[in-house]
């Protein structure tokens, strides 16, 4: 409902991409709270803390130093405690084979990183709105697959 904020976490090693993302998210109508981490190790450390409120939606860059997106995806999906988190792969790659592999490994959303700010805004609005529907309408998140090219 509209009094509840959606908790979003972004894992991306690129400063500019993170800023780009933050600015675009701020323009989406749904209320959000955004946390950012720099790489996969920070991500898993954050998610494994017991006293935090888990995010609803994690945006995961595939290419990160120390620990990459695919490895994080596998770890998150084999952890029962994190099963209600929706995962969006946020990547520069657009190969269909790679996309399907991330879905098979448990990602819910695949986004090819756009260069245009307006396009990113629209994409984030769509992703967040649909994810919000899942969060508030009791839809089955296991069937939640969204591919944005």
């Amino acid at each position, binding site marked *: *409902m*509209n*009094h509840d904020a959606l908790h979003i976490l972004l894992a991306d090693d690129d400063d500019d991409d993170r800023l780009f993302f933050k600015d675009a998210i701020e323009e989406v*109508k*749904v209320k959000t709270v955004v946390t950012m981490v720099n790489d996969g190790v920070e991500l898993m450390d954050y998610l494994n803390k017991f006293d935090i409120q888990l995010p609803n939606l994690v945006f995961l860059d595939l290419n990160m130093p120390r620990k990459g997106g695919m490895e994080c995806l596998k770890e998150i*999906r*084999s*952890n*029962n405690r*994190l*099963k209600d988190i929706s995962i969006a792969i946020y990547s520069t790659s657009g190969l269909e084979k790679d996309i*399907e592999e991330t*879905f*098979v*490994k*448990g990602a819910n959303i*695949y986004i090819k990183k756009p260069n245009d700010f307006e396009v990113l805004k629209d994409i984030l609005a769509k992703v967040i*709105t*649909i994810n*919000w*529907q899942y969060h*508030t*309408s*009791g*839809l*089955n998140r*296991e*069937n939640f*697959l*969204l*591919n*944005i*090219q």
Partner: protein
Amino acid sequence: MKLHIKYDMNICSRIILREQMDKLQLPYTITGLGEIEIKETVSTEKYEELETNLNKYAIEIINNPKNVFTQKIKDAIVEMVYLEEPLATIKNSAYLAKKLNRSYTYISGVFSEVTFTSIQNFIILQKIERAKQEIIEGKETLTEIAWKLNFNSVAHLSNEFKKNTGLTPTAFQRIIKKRKETDFTSQQ
């Protein structure tokens, strides 16, 4: 050993509601539109206890009238989409207006205000959800699914499915099948 299970959320949530309401030991009826009528006054203590217990199951008691009405709209839409026989002769807007006893203009206005999305989008979302379940169950062809969900044709269903998910129904089916084949402990 791997078990594949199917479950009906409506039945699950109703059983949970009954169990929690029975704990209260007050006479009640579940009217089925996300409404429970309690036939006596409820003390603040009991209300808070009920709310805490329900929150453990992510069930919320809604207070704002527009939010209450929006939940009714959603329930009516889900009911409409999951009918066994599609309503070919009546439009969605007419069905909802009749069911909720308000004009469609009012209904869609409140819905958009509360959810930030349109009724049309929500209806398509629910239809695609049902299509996904039917595809996973694998008992019906895409043609049969398209008819059941009141789409004009299989192409129409595939288009809406692809527009909504970015994947074709076939790709979706393939991914779900591969997911089940891999060792996927937290999704089972």
